[in-house]
């Protein structure tokens, strides 16, 4: 059976629309994948701009770069933009571009839904950031300023910016659910003949688990946000104690979504690891089955550990013990993944091209993020570290050191495939080392600040924290500036400069996507390949 299923409501005979209309109406998975990734890159730069504002404010004690109100708005937008605007879309972009290529499908299963899912994102981003722009020209009192966790009762009392954020969450949630449903249907229904689930590339597996998690937990955030909206405008009291509600309920709803969200961000890049490491170690992937089972174990555990974010909310001892042990239990399947990655490169003939450097950086930095997570999972130690800069450093190691490093590794790995041009290896290496150095200067110092007792989310600090904050801010400026190298490398390859890439791109790269020309034609696998 090698016949094609090419008709997905798309007729070439009509002549395709050009220019903007092409991108607005496209149902092609590669186009939509590229749109997702460009959107993610834009949001990454915007979120990075907010991050630089934060570090600019904190470079000196008693600094007046931002007002306290503006500072609160900036940290909130930084978090929301980076998580929902940058990381989730960019990993969804990888999924859209790569999953059909990796499983030998002609396109995603539901191409029109795919288009709709993407085009919900720009309105969501506009709704989220619009109050910030309006404030700059003197309209309204600014965007959401509650921190990205939007804790009640603060978010119940907050200004209209909170409503904008709630509507952005509705749009983002609808978009994510559409993308997830589409990916699951594609993986289940459109695999090349002969490809069983346990023969799928690990990136495909990782996105299958991500989709399952999204379908399970994003609705809880939508429900919680709907309750928040009702509390704010329709006189309900889900989260207000005066009417018999409970502010802690919001924390439960939020973290029931929020903790699995960490793995939603992580999984796709864990999958990317298992493509890059074998290529540059010139060895087959180590422990395929163990990695798949680890994904399952992590996904299952991730939905039952949420309250470790709430140890200081006055939880009884029994609850603290349960959430402490279940959280620590997650490190077992995560440890299996780490050992599989290390097993893959063990005694391999390693070469250190840019994707490999970022992949190795991912293992180191995400490793530090994971191990400091164990410190925070200790319910007793958490009483001190919670809401200190130790926590800030921890989740930046976990989310920048993990997903963002992994995404950048994936960009360098598949960019030649997508554009047909090699990036500049020299600039790529510069990008890696400046990122690695800048990142560690920025966030390693924040571990020390946190242990010394510097609280997060406050635009000023005591004098004894001044030297390390100066170090951290300088590191952040270096880290931010070095990302321009990534932008340049992408733009250069996309504009058609650089060495042409071969079909295989990398010596010995495995996977169906490397059997196609670089860049792949608009329509691929119209005749599905047979996998044996």
């Amino acid at each position, binding site marked *: 059976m090698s016949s094609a*299923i090419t*008709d997905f409501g798309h007729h070439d005979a009509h002549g395709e629309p050009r220019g903007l209309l092409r991108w607005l109406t496209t149902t092609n998975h590669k186009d939509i994948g590229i749109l997702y990734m460009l959107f993610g890159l834009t949001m990454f730069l915007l979120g990075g701009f907010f991050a630089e504002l934060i570090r600019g404010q904190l470079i000196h004690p008693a600094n007046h770069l931002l007002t306290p109100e503006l500072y609160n708005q900036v940290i909130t937008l930084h978090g929301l933009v980076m998580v929902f605007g940058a990381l989730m879309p960019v990993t969804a972009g990888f999924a859209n571009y790569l999953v059909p290529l990796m499983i030998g499908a002609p396109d995603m299963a539901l191409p029109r839904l795919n288009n709709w899912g993407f085009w919900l994102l720009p309105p969501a981003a506009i709704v989220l950031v619009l109050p910030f722009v309006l404030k700059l020209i003197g309209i309204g009192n600014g965007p959401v300023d509650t921190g990205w966790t939007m804790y009640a009762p603060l978010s119940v009392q907050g200004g209209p910016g909170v409503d904008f954020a709630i509507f952005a969450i509705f749009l983002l949630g609808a978009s994510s659910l559409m993308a997830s449903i589409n990916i699951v*249907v594609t993986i289940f229904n459109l695999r090349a003949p002969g490809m069983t689930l346990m023969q799928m590339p690990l990136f495909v597996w990782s996105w299958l688990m991500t989709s399952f998690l999204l379908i399970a*937990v994003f609705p809880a955030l939508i429900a919680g946000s709907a309750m928040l909206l009702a509390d704010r405008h329709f006189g309900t009291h889900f989260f207000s*104690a005066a*009417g*018999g509600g409970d502010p802690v309920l919001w924390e439960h709803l939020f973290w*029931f979504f929020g903790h699995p969200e960490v793995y939603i961000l992580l999984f796709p890049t864990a999958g990317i690891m298992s493509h890059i490491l074998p290529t540059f170690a010139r060895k087959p992937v180590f422990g395929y089955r163990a990695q798949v089972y680890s994904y399952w174990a992590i996904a299952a555990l991730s939905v039952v550990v949420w309250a470790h974010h709430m140890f200081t909310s006055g939880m009884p001892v029994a609850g603290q013990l349960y959430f402490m042990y279940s959280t620590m239990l997650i490190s077992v399947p995560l440890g299996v993944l780490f050992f599989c990655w290390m097993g893959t490169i063990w005694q391999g003939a390693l070469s250190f091209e840019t994707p490999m450097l970022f992949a190795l950086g991912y293992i180191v930095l995400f490793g530090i993020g994971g191990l400091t997570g164990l410190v925070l999972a200790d319910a007793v130690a958490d009483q001190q570290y919670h809401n200190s800069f130790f926590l800030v450093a921890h989740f930046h190691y976990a989310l920048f050191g993990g997903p963002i490093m992994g995404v950048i590794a994936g960009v360098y790995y598949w960019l030649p495939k997508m554009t047909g041009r090699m990036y500049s290896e020299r600039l790529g290496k510069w990008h890696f080392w400046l990122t690695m150095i800048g990142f560690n200067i920025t966030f390693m110092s924040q571990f020390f600040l946190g242990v010394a007792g510097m609280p997060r989310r406050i635009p000023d600090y005591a004098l004894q924290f001044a030297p390390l904050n100066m170090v951290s801010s300088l590191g952040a400026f270096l880290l931010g500036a070095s990302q321009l190298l990534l932008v340049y490398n992408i733009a250069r390859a996309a504009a058609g400069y650089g060495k042409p890439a071969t079909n295989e791109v990398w010596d010995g790269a495995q996977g169906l996507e490397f059997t196609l020309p670089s860049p792949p034609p608009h329509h691929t696998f119209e005749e599905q390949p047979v996998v044996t």
Partner: protein
Amino acid sequence: MSEASRAARIMTQRAANRRLAFALLFVALGFLGFGFGLVPLYNSFCQITGLNGKTGEATARPAGGVDLSRTVTVEFTSTVMPGLPWRFEPMVRRLRIHPGEPANAAYLAVNLGGTRRDGQAIMSVSPEQAATHFKKIECFCYHKQALDPQQTRLMPIVFFVSRDLPQEISTITVSYSAFPVTEEVALRGENRRER
């Protein structure tokens, strides 16, 4: 393969895709319902376990008589939330009682504002392990309290501490927070969920 059988396969494929997509949509809607369902779920979970300081209730005298061998200290505290111009404090700050012994306490509320203001007291008990063992027979916190300007009201609470209070607990702190009642809360009547 002929055009006809190709078209037929495309249609079966599309139908299968649509079926799975709708199944997943229903799963997502189920989880949306679950998200809302968490509200009553958490509430009854806290009621049963006494987590979150949710206290027990009793309509009758305690069973099993008074345990004279133990004495428990019950402390009363108060907070007035912003927006309510009340003075609100316990008449007795500390009571020493035996488990199983019904006791009375009272809070004094004065409206210091120039207009009639409604307030509603919400209670919590710590340590949390004691919450289910603190049984209210009558409490002013069951109802909203309307106070005219400068009006003073002595508000009673009748309660007992059940005999099965864990041995290691010797002090129970009962905290009341007076919240301003807005129009919307007033429309909904008394606060049912806290009972």
